[in-house]
């Protein structure tokens, strides 16, 4: 019999993120599909009661929690101890978590500690022949596999954005508190805070509808034999202002910074999309001045509608990577587009 445990951590304000509700949705679907399985919830955070109450109407039969000041921050040692304690208290055989940076850091270690196995970046959780099965991608989103495992506990981290969120309502949840004995060694690391660009310079917006990708073409010599980097900067920032799109980049463009060339100051490696960058999820994506090579476009796996503007009719986008390729000068098109969007 499978005991399915959904593990979630609270956000800084004590709420549950959408990704936690997505994990809960996936776990509940599995729970329904596997006869005789039970569904449990485990929560970690400074105060967890409000989070538990917010999903109290979910079909879980029991809530477990680890709370206290030590569990406010995202830190390997304390998170591992808390997660392991809840998994043991719940006697979980399947542990489903949202693949947040906090869980990604610690989950494989917890699996190791409890003699289990782990799968991360899971995009589907299903039942096959009475057993759980998962989908995940290999070789940076180049191929998709369906796999199952006999080992338990089996830890499964669900990629945010890959599932619908559960709509369980609020109520009053009874949470069984799980004790965790921390040692001094668990507190050798102090989490100091977060560092981020100033509000208006923050160009990475995971919740945006549109991903706007800039390629190295923006810094290359144009038809007049000159580069136009300041102009490119102005066009790009104005477009972001109008659309609130998330800004992505090709590797070539963000690498220029390291090579001492004139570059766009608001771009860093965090903006990079692709093989050695990120694979974000957005409904639409618009690529500009980027060649659409495979190491770049593997990062577009989860962008639904794709359009590109490039001078090169034979670029990668033309070969089945985009829905529409506009063979045109992005400088000219984007200036016009900004005019339209600004009206």
């Amino acid at each position: 019999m499978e005991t399915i445990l959904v593990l979630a951590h609270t956000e800084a304000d004590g709420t549950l993120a959408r990704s936690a509700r997505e994990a809960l949705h996936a776990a509940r679907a599995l729970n329904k599909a596997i006869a005789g399985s039970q569904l449990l919830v485990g929560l970690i955070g400074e105060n967890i009661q409000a989070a538990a109450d917010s999903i109290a109407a979910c079909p879980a039969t029991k809530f477990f929690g680890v709370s206290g000041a030590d569990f406010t921050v995202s830190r390997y040692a304390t998170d591992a101890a808390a997660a392991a304690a809840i998994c043991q208290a719940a006697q979980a055989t399947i542990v489903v978590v949202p693949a947040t940076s906090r869980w990604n850091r610690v989950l494989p270690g917890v699996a190791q500690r409890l003699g289990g196995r782990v799968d991360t970046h899971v995009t589907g959780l299903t039942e096959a022949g009475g057993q759980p099965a998962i989908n995940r991608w290999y070789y940076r989103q180049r191929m998709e596999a369906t796999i199952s495992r006999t080992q338990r506990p089996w830890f499964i981290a669900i990629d945010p954005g890959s599932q619908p969120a559960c709509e369980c309502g609020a109520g009053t949840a009874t949470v069984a508190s799980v004790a965790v004995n921390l040692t001094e060694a668990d507190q050798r690391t102090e989490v100091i805070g977060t560092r981020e660009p100033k509000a208006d310079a923050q160009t990475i917006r995971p919740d945006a509808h549109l991903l706007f990708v800039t390629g190295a073409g923006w810094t290359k010599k144009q038809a007049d034999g000159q580069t136009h980097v300041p102009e490119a900067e102005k066009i790009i920032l104005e477009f972001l202002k109008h659309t609130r799109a998330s800004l992505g980049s090709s590797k070539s463009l963000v690498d220029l910074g390291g090579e001492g060339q004139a570059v766009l100051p608001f771009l860093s490696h965090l903006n990079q999309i692709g093989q050695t960058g990120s694979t974000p999820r957005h409904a639409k994506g618009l690529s500009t001045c980027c060649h659409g090579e495979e190491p770049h476009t593997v990062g577009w796996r989860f962008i639904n509608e794709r359009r590109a503007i490039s001078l090169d009719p034979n670029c990668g986008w033309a070969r089945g990577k985009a829905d529409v390729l506009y063979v045109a000068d992005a400088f000219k098109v984007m200036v016009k587009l900004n005019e339209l969007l600004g009206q």
Partner: protein
Amino acid sequence: MNTAYQIVVCAGIVPDPLQTLEPVLSPTGPALKNEMMLPAVLDPWAGHALYEAANLAKNAPGSKVWLVSLGPKAKLQQVMMTVAQKVPFELVALDGPASGFTEAAEVAAALTEAIQTIPGLDKSKLLVFGGWESASRGAGATMQMVGERLGIVDQFQGVDQLTVGADGSLEILERIEGGKHQVSKCAGPPALLGWATGNLPEPKNNPQIGMTNMRTVMPALQKAKPTKLAGEGLAFASVTLPKQLRETKVVKDKSPEEIAAEIAEWINK
């Protein structure tokens, strides 16, 4: 405070990202078509870990870098021909599969065993580095398990920066959601860091470093321990390429105004 570190970098090898990859079913499970023929490179994020390790070692006299790598011996040798020219390290090689379809827990067990054979390993100086995800399995799981096996609970993933404080503490920047970094301070070694891109460019080839490295690389390859990964309890029901390509509409003869209008409509839809 000057600490001499023992930095162990775990780095696998992967097919060159510019190659087209196709899955096939082999008697031992899924594999890549012509896997042994595909040119290989050092796993990119693990490569960043190696360059960061070398940089840290350079700035902390008395430090040393080991590179622990599991892969088919012949492929490892091919990759080492270039990697050995980049930065000084001593290779610890394991002869086994480099496939993305292998089991992370088994790889972690093999890597840990290899790390433990390093003579004179001192946990109070130990920093274990690796990539935060591979370009093959892409799981971001192996390093944490290595850390657990070595008893290291100061672990960091998606690291972009490590700064050693005057008191020997380690300030670490890890990638978190929304283009932000979490800043942590760890008292000192032992610690485990899974690197993202870091801040260093790929070092230029230096034949002199290559010559020095090769003195230990070749013997290490010769005595590379054969390593079997059974994939126990793991079953692949299918491995498939994504459903075929999109039908790209190539628009060539429209004016910037027309294109802008079309895109504006699409964005606002």
